């Protein structure tokens, strides 16, 4: 029992046939070939599946695709150019295998939108729902601080 839903995806209007039980991360993968949001824990804990729905970060693995109808969905693939956060992640070597990285990038953007100059404590709390088994955490904290500086300077 699929039905067509319309939504905006990274700025473009799109339509997809989705079953009610399909999650957003599945639909992005299967219907749109977008792999930046990826399922790992499947339980809302690791943040690998992070996407933005109407500007707010959600776990794509716990979000029914059908609920995205009419919304604006953004994934890490959205922007054409690297932003301050991505540049900072590269400069601070804030990833190893990279599986968790898109989630961290999206969450860091949200964090900096809310707190342009976050304290270390704010960084740790805001990103505590993102796991990195490679444990690039110290570098991630550094990258977030650097990204904040970069953003303020531009």
């Amino acid at each position: 029992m699929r039905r067509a839903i319309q939504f905006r995806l990274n700025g473009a209007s799109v339509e997809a046939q989705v079953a009610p039980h399909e999650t957003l991360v599945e639909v992005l993968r299967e219907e749109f070939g977008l792999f930046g949001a990826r399922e790992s824990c499947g339980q809302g804990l690791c943040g690998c599946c992070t996407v933005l729905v109407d500007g707010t970060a959600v776990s794509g693995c716990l979000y029914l695709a059908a609920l995205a109808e009419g919304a604006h969905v953004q994934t890490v693939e959205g922007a054409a150019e690297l932003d301050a956060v991505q540049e900072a992640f590269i400069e601070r070597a804030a990833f190893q295998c990279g599986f968790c990285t898109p989630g961290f990038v999206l969450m860091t953007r949200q964090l900096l939108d809310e707190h342009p100059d976050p304290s270390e404590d704010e960084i740790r709390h805001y990103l505590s729902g993102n796991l990195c088994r490679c444990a690039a955490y110290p570098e991630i904290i550094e990258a977030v601080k650097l990204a904040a500086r970069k953003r303020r300077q531009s």
Partner: protein
Amino acid sequence: MKRATQATETPQVGRSVPRLESWLKVTGRAEYVHNLRLPGMLYGKIFRSSVAHGRIKRIDVSAARALAGVHSVVTAAEVKTLVPEPYYGPAFHDQPVLAVDKVRYVGEPVAVVLASDPHVAEEAVHLISAEYEELPAVYDEVEAMTSKAIVHETLKPAGTFPDLKHLKGRSNTNVALDFRLRRGDAAKAMKGAERVFEHRFRTQQVMHTPLEPLVSVAESTDSSLTIHTASQSPSFVRIEIARLLGWPENRVRVRVPFLGGGFGAKLYIKLEALVAVLSLLVHRPVKVSLTMEEQFFTITKHASTFRIKSGVTRDGRIVARDCEVWWNGGAYADIGPRVTQKSGFTAPGPYDIQDVSIDSYALYTNLPPAGALRGFGIPQLVWAYESHTDMIARELGIDPVEFRRKNLLREGRPQATGTRMKDAALEKVLERTAALLEWEKPFDHGSGTVRRGRGLAIGFKACIANTTSLAAVSVNADGSCTVYTSCVDMGQGSDTAMAQIAAEVLRMPTESVTVVHSDTDVTPFDMATLGSRSLFHSGNAVKLAAEDAVRKLNELRAELKLAADTPIADVFRKKYGMRAGSVMGGGNFIPPYTPPDENGQTENATPFWMVGATGVELEVDTETGRVRITRLINVADVGTPINPRIVETQLSGGAIMQLGFTLFEKMLFDAEGQLRNASLAEYKIPGLLDLPAEIVNEAVVAEQRSGPFGAKGVGETATFGVSPAVANAIHDAIGVRLTELPLNPEAVFQAMHK
């Protein structure tokens, strides 16, 4: 993208080049098997055993087969039509593609449903039922030595390793390897010792949890097979699949893109044999991707028990050491017997001890199989011997650092195997750790309900031998360079390091080198990406290949009567009259090695030694037992780093992972062998809020003379000392000794109130 093909005099090794794949990773575009979908592909979902040990009486797949949308259901019966002896494994041919006749642990794959919609396959799995005649099971590694419950009827060593041959055909035993080492006469020396100390330590079963769960895809024709897999060992996969099918190796192609983490979980055969057989059976591409939950039923880290006994003089010289280690290998041997031997021979620790005896046993039990996990058994051993070391020092009233100094293996001295230490900066690493901890200064031990302590531990590891790496380097007509290696970049940064090594030899910027990902049709043989061997082995092979290419380029220059500094592009233009051609260099690296004799003695046990120490400062909440790490110091001998920044991330990453194994990670089984916490909701791994307040990483100034540009592996080094350093610091804080991991709040609290 920058395209620099100009020659450069800037050194390429020793530079913190950002990872070559950085852009791909921060934009979510890096290729993982996780992303792969092929036309006509079926998804396989696994039906798993619900008993720990039992004979399969009946499997009923009829309801699953009847579900709309199900393509087929496969059990061992179908597997056997293709592979009559469907057993694989690196050390023993003991693991069936799907359970044959018997199941040996809860969660063992018994049947697979195939469907083009994974939800349908999943739904159908719930419709399968199986009946078992339950057999007695054994879970504890020490009990498994004498238990009446026998996991495997007969032992089937793979034949690859000479030291396993004697086990062939043995029955009525769970011992998959009984490694022994004798140096001098430990028993006699123990009798003569002024003081004797004996302790017993345990480690728990834990899981790698790479965030990209295990995944493999196979596509096939009747005479060829391509496997796309998240594997750390593509060459092994090819050999083993070819053996199972009775095919020549060149018909089996194994491709590996980036891995979303490995840590040892993705070694040898995991899902590859299954997808290969499924694809050949149904003539369609097949993908099996495990969920995070299923990973826990696939591969784990050995639980272990270690009895360690030392004879010591009153003034603190260790004169004898007797080690007995039991490794809980779970239901299938995987690489456990290697762990038992290769790590086993370092069980006495990095100390200069005359008389040593080691017995190290690999055991089968009815738990999920255990294999290699970031350290190949070393963290389990260091946990025991460095806790033991502190306990002795404190008993003798000697400062723990001083006690270690007194006994440390110095350069040139023989280790327990008789192999002399070489390029192992044990002293430096110990001294730097003590210095960073400001060991000589008084330390505030806190008061009231918050007590503070500090501790350190040092461990070492012999890199696995005897292993081979090959590489090829192609220099293209425009002067750019392509490296071919089957070394897998699972996050450790090997692509970048290999490119730096090639670039250094070829005097070109690292950015003009690309590294071709493992593809057994294209990239040459490599034993596997494991045990911190790749930077040394593959790195040396790449270096040799690049040198070979340089030699050939120089020959071309000579042949064309060109000056020695003629740019590469000009050489080719002169040779071919246009932009054409390429030069291919080859490198084959296999370091010398001497197999041990029946007493475990050899002059050359390893190509290089890794050395790592950890310093810890912490606080203990005496009312709850909670431990808070305030300072974590990781010091390592990594030789001369190729990429200092990546080295640093390996050090802190490894240490933080081990901190999880130290403080709370634990697979919890009930009395029936059922895992109770198979998900990240119940099996917790460290997050940002668990990070120590301060982390210090240091690579001491050192050189591995046989390594590429003085470098050696680093992927595991920072894990070695973490657990005992924490336990030693807890003891320093509250005077309580813990001998079993993890050191969670309840364990600390109970120990305080015993």
